[in-house]
């Protein structure tokens, strides 16, 4: 373990361009996926959270099921769509960064939708009533609900990011782990483990964990900043 930590520090200290390219790509792919997933998931989750529970029971159960969607299944679906014979084959996206972003977006959306709906629903009725009696239109109602549930929604985004940054199966399938092109931290860890370079794999794991820690710390501070003292 100590050797792995020393390795991780050495790797970072040498400013190995390939390592920093892998780190950058990991952040780019997962960051883009989470932003896209939030753009779709937050409005959808808000809509779901505003609806009476019985009217959206079936959708909610589907969303909750998809929150646990195995990455390899998502990878398989996207692989089939993007493969030469697939519906989106002509786009030539298989084994590209774009394909990796698509599959990670697909994994993050249900988490963000589901957790946003819960956050909105927990505040929903009383905020809805108050906003309506104060003469707000529908747009202001939705905006106020999102604003009031923002810390819960931020929690949904953090969870979505945690899910995709640590994910390996789907990006491996649709990205192909091509050196210098689609290799990210998780696929590099798998590769190094298969090659028997356990120390290097562990070092990459520590770097991944460190990245997740730094990003989540930042997001947590944002979240806590809003909830402390209220």
């Amino acid at each position, binding site marked *: 373990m100590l050797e792995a930590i020393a390795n991780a520090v050495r790797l970072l200290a040498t400013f190995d361009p390939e390592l920093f390219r892998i780190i950058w790509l990991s952040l780019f792919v997962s960051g883009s996926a989470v932003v896209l997933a939030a753009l779709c998931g937050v409005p959808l989750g808000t809509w779901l959270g505003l609806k009476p529970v019985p009217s959206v029971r079936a959708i909610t159960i589907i969303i909750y099921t998809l929150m646990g969607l195995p990455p390899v299944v998502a990878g398989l679906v996207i692989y089939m769509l993007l493969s030469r014979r697939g519906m989106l084959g002509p786009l030539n996206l298989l084994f590209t960064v774009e394909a990796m972003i698509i599959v990670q977006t697909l994994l993050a959306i249900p988490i963000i939708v589901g957790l946003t709906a819960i956050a909105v629903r927990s505040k929903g009725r*009383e*905020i809805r*009533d*108050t*906003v*309506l*009696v*104060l*003469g*707000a*239109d*529908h747009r*202001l109602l939705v905006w*106020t609900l999102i*604003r*009031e549930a923002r810390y819960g929604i931020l929690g949904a985004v953090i969870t979505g990011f945690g899910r995709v940054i640590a994910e390996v199966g789907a990006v491996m399938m649709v990205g192909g782990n091509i050196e210098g092109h689609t290799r990210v931290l998780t696929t590099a860890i798998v590769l190094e483990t298969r090659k028997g370079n356990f120390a290097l794999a562990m070092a990459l794991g520590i770097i991944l964990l460190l990245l997740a820690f730094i990003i989540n710390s930042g997001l947590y501070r944002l979240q806590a900043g*809003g909830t402390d*003292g*209220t």
Partner: protein
Amino acid sequence: MEHKVIIEATGLSKCFGEREVLRAENITLCAGNIIGVMGPSGAGKSTLLRILSLLDPPTSGVLSFFGQPLPASPSERLVMRRRLTMVMQKPVLFDASVFDNIAFGLKARRLPAGEISRRVEESLEKIGLTAQRRQKAKTLSGGEAQRVALARAMVLEPEILFLDEPTANLDPANVELLEGLLRSLNRELGTTVVIVTHNLFQARRLAGDILFLCQGSLVEAGPTEEIFKRPLDLRTRAFVEGRMIY
């Protein structure tokens, strides 16, 4: 003085599934009055208030406001909704400053910033919270929060103000302050005030007319003194004499 009818409801009922929680054949509320809605727990008071404040639709019945039937189009309904407002028993304040909470409805109506500022400052003065204008509303005490909720409604200068047991959790000083504000709103702007209260003394102090509900039905309606001195229904009598547990 002859008051014009501001709300009229005919054949009103509200059901949750098979269960009917409210039935009122005829409700007529006149403009400029303070109307107390009384009754034991589970009488349907809050349900009635939610229907009249356009938060929930009735299961059946016909409602008219200001002499007009309830419009079907959302934009026209919004215009009607903006003529009335409501204060809940438990104040729900937004995660914003006291000033921004009070300004919320004025901003929703897109009033000029200068007018919003002037009206909010006046309201802050009335509720005695000028010094707390920049304070986060969620850090206020229960009494202060209810004062902000009332100011947020009053600043809109509504034609009808509904209140659902607004003083239930307040100390006597805050109760007195809120009642004073309601009286002055009614007197100065002619706002019709509809207040649900459990408190017989408060109903007698404030209300000119009373609606008495029991077990989901409107039992009796009339001038406050008539209801207290000469109730027509035995249930009303039991309630005003304090023999009905609520």
